[in-house]
């Protein structure tokens, strides 16, 4: 007898439908899975057999063939276990084949028949809706996440034995309540950053205009401490963005299923490979930049990252998307993130102007090459920080994140009104920067800077964009002289 149902396999950051067909015929008892399964899918045979037997089903001692279609799509992971078990039960006549045909199943089986969670439940539930399935059955751990997908029936079951109720014509399991997205987890607060006024301001500007930020200074200056607090001043994600971000996080198995409106903050270690950073491997997996989509990618110790990793960042940063091409196909993964980077001025961290620095010339030049390299050229804001003095350390705590965030959100509103779409100043084109309203004094300041400093055309536009964000934070429609000067002080200097 033949039974079929639907399962999903993860391909990049999307769930692709897989038709699971199981045929049970008389013959030598075998259980074969065909249709380009990977090792985890092939091993499903053993899990499905043990789970069904332990749940009291009769495992048919016949010739069992499972086919996964389309045959040219590589099926990965253990998420197909439940669908295989359901189709097998249908083909063996234990449950109704009609009911399972229109449904989708996702879940890994334990040997006692318990369901284990899978990655990408949200994407699978959405794919089930798009594929025209009546509903999807998921493990309980994934249920509330999957329930975020509208327009598709989501049921959670704990054990494969619950499928027996299908033979009574009843679809088992509970309808879980969707996750509460308004819940905001506690984040480290900006008030922990004492003193460091310009650094705080730079974080605020970066958060408001999505400007890349590079902060250079000795260890202990609070670079990482400050950078890690940027998440607490970013505006919350909108409804669609939450689902977009949650889908990626769920497929990559990060965040432990915690879905909220908080923007992602990714801080890969400096030993990360280029593939780990931008995505890659075979089959291609999303990298850190995709996980940081709509949030912040923080590179601590920027100069210690491999050159190849940093080089690989450039193009995706520019276009907000990374394209991974393999012989088997191409994947476009989104990666609109704000880059925040921290670096020591030299390997010992003291800085070459400090007489105690004993770093070699080559090491200092290597650092300088990265700080003035092509990646740094795509970062809008650069500033140097020093260790705060004792007075600042013992002084009052800084402003609360909630207050800073309010200014950031107001500034974003001004930007949205300016561009007519939810864009930020960092994305302003050269033509748009020319349309910025600027005070005469500020124009003169910029012209003076051109005369005495070396400012490239790219740096000119960058300064204008940052000045625009600073004015937006102050609620000014026109860029003033102080805004321009602050932007000039935050620009990247040329190597000497």
């Amino acid at each position, binding site marked *: 007898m033949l039974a079929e149902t639907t399962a999903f396999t993860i391909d990049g950051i999307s769930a692709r439908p897989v038709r699971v067909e199981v045929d049970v015929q008389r013959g030598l008892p075998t259980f074969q899975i065909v249709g380009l399964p990977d090792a985890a899918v092939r091993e499903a045979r053993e899990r499905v057999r043990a789970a069904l037997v332990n749940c009291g089903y009769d495992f048919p001692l016949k010739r069992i063939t499972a086919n996964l279609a389309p045959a040219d799509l590589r099926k990965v992971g253990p998420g197909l276990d439940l669908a295989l078990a359901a189709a097998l039960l249908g083909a063996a006549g234990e449950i109704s084949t009609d009911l399972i045909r229109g449904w989708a199943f996702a879940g890994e089986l334990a040997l006692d028949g318990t369901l284990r969670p899978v990655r990408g439940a949200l994407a699978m539930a959405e794919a089930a809706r798009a594929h025209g399935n009546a509903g999807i059955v998921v493990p309980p751990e994934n249920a509330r996440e999957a329930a975020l997908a509208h327009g598709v029936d989501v049921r959670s079951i704990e054990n494969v034995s619950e499928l027996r109720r299908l033979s009574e014509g009843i679809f088992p399991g509970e309808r879980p309540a969707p996750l509460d997205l308004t819940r905001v987890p506690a984040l480290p607060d900006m008030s922990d950053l004492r003193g460091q006024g*310009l*650094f705080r301001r730079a974080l605020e500007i970066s958060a408001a205009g999505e400007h890349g930020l590079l902060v250079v*200074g000795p260890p202990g200056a609070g670079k990482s401490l400050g950078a890690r607090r940027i998440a607490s001043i970013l505006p919350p994600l909108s409804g669609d963005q939450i689902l977009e971000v949650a889908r990626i996080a769920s497929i990559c198995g990060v965040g432990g299923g915690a879905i909220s409106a908080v923007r992602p903050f990714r801080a890969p270690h400096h030993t990360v490979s280029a593939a780990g950073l931008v995505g890659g491997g075979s089959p291609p997996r999303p990298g850190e930049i995709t996980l940081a989509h709509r949030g912040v990618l923080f590179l601590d110790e920027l100069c210690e990252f491999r050159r190849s990793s940093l080089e690989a960042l450039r193009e995706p940063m520019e276009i907000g998307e990374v394209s991974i091409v393999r012989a088997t196909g191409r994947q476009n993964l989104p990666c609109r993130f704000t880059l925040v980077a921290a*670096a020591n001025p030299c390997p010992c961290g003291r800085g070459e*102007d400090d*007489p105690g620095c004993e770093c070699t*010339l080559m090491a200092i030049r290597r650092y300088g090459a990265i700080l003035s390299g092509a990646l740094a050229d795509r970062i809008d804001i650069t500033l*140097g920080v020093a260790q705060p003095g004792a007075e600042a350390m013992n002084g009052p705590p800084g402003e609360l994140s909630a207050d800073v965030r309010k200014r950031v959100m107001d500034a974003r509103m001004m930007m949205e009104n300016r561009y007519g779409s939810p864009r930020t100043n960092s994305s302003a084109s050269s033509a748009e920067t020319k349309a910025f309203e600027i005070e005469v004094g500020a124009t003169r300041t910029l012209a003076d800077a051109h005369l005495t400093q070396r400012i490239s055309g790219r740096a000119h536009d960058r300064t204008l964009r940052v000045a625009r964000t600073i004015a937006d934070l102050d609620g000014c429609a026109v860029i003033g002289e102080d805004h321009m000067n602050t932007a000039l002080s935050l620009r990247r200097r040329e190597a*000497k």
Partner: protein
Amino acid sequence: MSGAGVTAESACPECLRRSWLIARLADNIQVSCDDSPGNRTPELLRLSDEDLTSAVAPKQLDEVLSGNSDITEALMVGALLDSGCWACCHHDPRFPDGLKDGADAPRALIGKGEGFPLSEVTTEASVTIVGSRRATGYGLEVARTLGRDVASTGLTVVSGMALGIDGAAHRGALERGRTVAVLACGPDRAYPVSHKRLYRQILETGLVVSELPPGCEPRRWGFPARNRIMAALSQMTVVVEAAFRSGSLITAEMASDAGREVGAVPGQVTVGPAAGTNELLANGAALIRDARDVIDRVIGVGAMPLRIVGPPVDRELRPVIDAVERGCGTVDGAADFLARDSVEVAVGMARLEVLGYLTCSITGNYSRTSQEAPDET
């Protein structure tokens, strides 16, 4: 571009052949220097062709010498023309006078660049500025302003185009006047490669010279050899920043051996980068704080009062200058020091940078330039 005043044919073939011989023996000289560390290149290069060859390549003596005398003038001039170089030897009146008297001076100079006539490179009107390759921001700033201000008085700044101080001195000189780069390789090669742009700039408005023929690669022995030319070319050698056992100290020693004046810029006494220059000062070198100190010795006391005064500065920005002078390199550091709002200080520092009172490194660290603020009225 006024032209160097000399051409590929300005040197006599005998003197040119010496350069070709040194290039031919370059590897042997390196081996011989490696074998006996005390054996200093300038002493080797003082030897006659035969003695030099038998000293570094005794087994190939005849082969090298006969091979060298077989090199035709046409071949050498052709090589010079192909690489756009010119040459001048000590028989020529246009040859720099500083190289005419020394026993170990090169017999011919091969050069490139058309910035000004070679005949105007006289000991009297030249100052050599050298220093550590691994310089601090302070040292680089001093070298640049020193180069600029010395050049602005019409003197020629001689240096070695190395990383660090040398490069900064050339850059400063290029802003206002003349500079000569002495290379340890053929003059048609930009070494170090990262100074390729600087090399091109010097070719345009200055001169690049060497005792080696075009195409010759740099070798370790070439640097002390190059240093003796730098020391001899000018009447004063100023070391801006040098650690112990720095190559710049060799240049200073050679300058003093050649009867030239030596000056040094003082630095912090506690640690590395200025240990060598402070040592020079302790041993009697002239103390150099700015170009005025150089001019006082090279031209005459008070010959050219130098004081670069910048544009007017607002009253409230003066404390910011003061804070940077006291070592507050970052905006937040200065704001802490002045107990003022960071953004306000950032605005002030950006303004002061534009006005030329401050400079900022790629690591975002501010330092003070030599430009003086006008007196408050």
